[in-house]
């Protein structure tokens, strides 16, 4: 039995704050290789696919031109949506950024790092906010730059057709920067689903199901339900932001469409916040 009298120690001063939590999440994200691989792959795929699609279109144009001969103007290959073509890569890179968003959260659960995180910062909603903000900030920088490059590279590939878009072409600026925003939203969709489901496999497959599979199911519905329902699904609503210059009146307008995607993402993040707040760690 210890009889010595010891003075209980007091805690040192200091406090948790949102800027400190942001700094903490920034250290966490930048210190994982998967972050850089994921962001790098998102950028490379975005640019590469857009460039290849534009090259193929230019190739087709010249084939038609040769077949038509020097004075055959009828067979010309029209490229009406040059800006949109160069941004096609987001259809593939959305899978990478969405997976990365889910991993940012589920990686902590699968390794039990979440116990350390919540022991250090027990108020739960700021944990979600800090993760979402830091991931969103990194994603927006990478995705905007990637889409600007994709646009430049793609339009350069189309130059020989004289049908390329420029920054002053109507809709170009909206489509290019909107494409970046679309990718960021899909990434945050992954973050939200990660907090809801906690398992990497469950979060990624749910994201793929909502983004890729729901539109396929919608097309199986009889008219007009296919588009009436389909236009509100995450991908069909969100990708309206890159449609140039003519849009299908059956679908939502670009910004309304992106707004609908943002609502899906907000719902996923809200559900994630609820689960994080209520469930045991």
């Amino acid at each position: 039995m210890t009889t010595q009298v010891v003075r209980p120690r007091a805690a040192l001063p200091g406090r948790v704050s949102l800027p400190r939590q942001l700094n903490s999440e920034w250290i966490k994200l930048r210190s994982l290789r998967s972050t850089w691989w994921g962001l790098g792959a998102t950028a490379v795929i975005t640019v590469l696919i857009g460039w290849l699609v534009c090259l193929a279109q230019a190739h087709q144009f010249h084939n038609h031109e040769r077949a038509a001969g020097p004075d055959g103007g009828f067979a010309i290959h029209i490229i009406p949506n040059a800006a949109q073509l160069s941004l096609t890569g987001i259809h593939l890179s959305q899978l990478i950024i969405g997976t990365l968003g889910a991993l940012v959260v589920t990686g902590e659960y699968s390794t039990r790092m979440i116990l350390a995180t919540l022991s250090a910062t027990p108020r739960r909603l700021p944990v979600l906010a800090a993760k979402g903000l830091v991931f969103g900030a990194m994603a927006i920088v990478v995705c905007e730059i990637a889409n600007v490059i994709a646009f430049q590279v793609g339009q350069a590939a189309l130059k020989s057709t004289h049908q390329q878009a420029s920054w002053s072409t109507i809709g170009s600026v909206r489509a290019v920067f909107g494409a970046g925003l679309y990718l960021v939203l899909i990434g945050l969709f992954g973050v939200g689903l990660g907090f809801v489901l906690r398992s990497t496999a469950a979060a990624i497959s749910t994201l793929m199901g909502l983004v890729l599979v729901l539109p396929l199911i919608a097309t199986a519905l009889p008219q007009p339900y296919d588009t009436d329902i389909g236009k509100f699904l995450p991908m069909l609503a969100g990708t309206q932001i890159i449609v140039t210059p003519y849009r299908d009146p059956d679908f939502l307008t670009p910004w309304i469409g992106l707004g609908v995607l943002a609502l899906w993402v907000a719902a996923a993040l809200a559900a994630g916040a609820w689960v994080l707040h209520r469930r045991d760690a």
Partner: protein
Amino acid sequence: MIEANGLVKRYGAKTAVDDLSFTVQPGVVTGFLGPNGSGKSTTMRMLLGLDHPNEGHSSINGKRHVEMRAPLREVGALLEAKAVHTGRTARNHLLALAVSNGIPTKRVDEVLGLVGLDQVARKRAGGFSLGMGQRLGIAAALLGDPPTLLLDEPVNGLDPEGIRWVRQLLQALAAEGRTIFVSSHLMSEMALTASEIIVVGRGKLITSGSVADLLRRASGGSVLVRTRAAERLAAALRDAGAAVDCPDADELHVDGVDSEAVGAIAAREGVALIELTTRQASLEDAFMELTGETVEYHGSTKVRG
């Protein structure tokens, strides 16, 4: 000081922690002892606000964990070995935790040195052994130099040198006036490390008190006597008010009187003794005696039924 009041945690129909109340005082190492599945880890997680109790409440130095302004500076915790992202280096892991609580970077290098991980600070934690993972967990617990430490099975996976290091570290930290609450299912280890002990079984409090008291109570002052004249001596001892048990023809287990009294009575009766021993239960015996009925997962030493 840690206080738990009527903590209850249910998982479906199973009650993992059942009306558990206890107090952990500063200045000593308090052991939290119980068989596997007795609710030790769940209790620790509730103290840290990671699991929400169905009933009851707890506080650390009068505060709920979620109310702490800088939790790492108030309570350090080791909950699971290797609760670390496998892709991150040891140093970055600690750095991320430190900055969230405004702890300076130099403290990160300090604790890495303290736990002996400075050589592997920039290696990814995924490649760490269980023992290195425990050291990293202890480093994280010490980051904020907190007055309270909660450690769940900290010596698991450590080599003998590491076990001894943890024991001395915990005792030194307690001597500085800190509250040290450390769980284990290894009684022998607790006997060496802790001076106070809280024993649980199936989520219920079985006993608490000092290790010395627990040993005394469990051994019950039993005296073992071997003699050819067992019956005669047993009668004399019973006359003297002792409880006597006769498990063997020439063996007696005597309760209620000490070995000196037994010797005196034997001399008076003219009984020759073969052996006279005070039975001191080990903490392990005491533990088995206390938790015997509450052990959830029994193994068998019978190879063939």
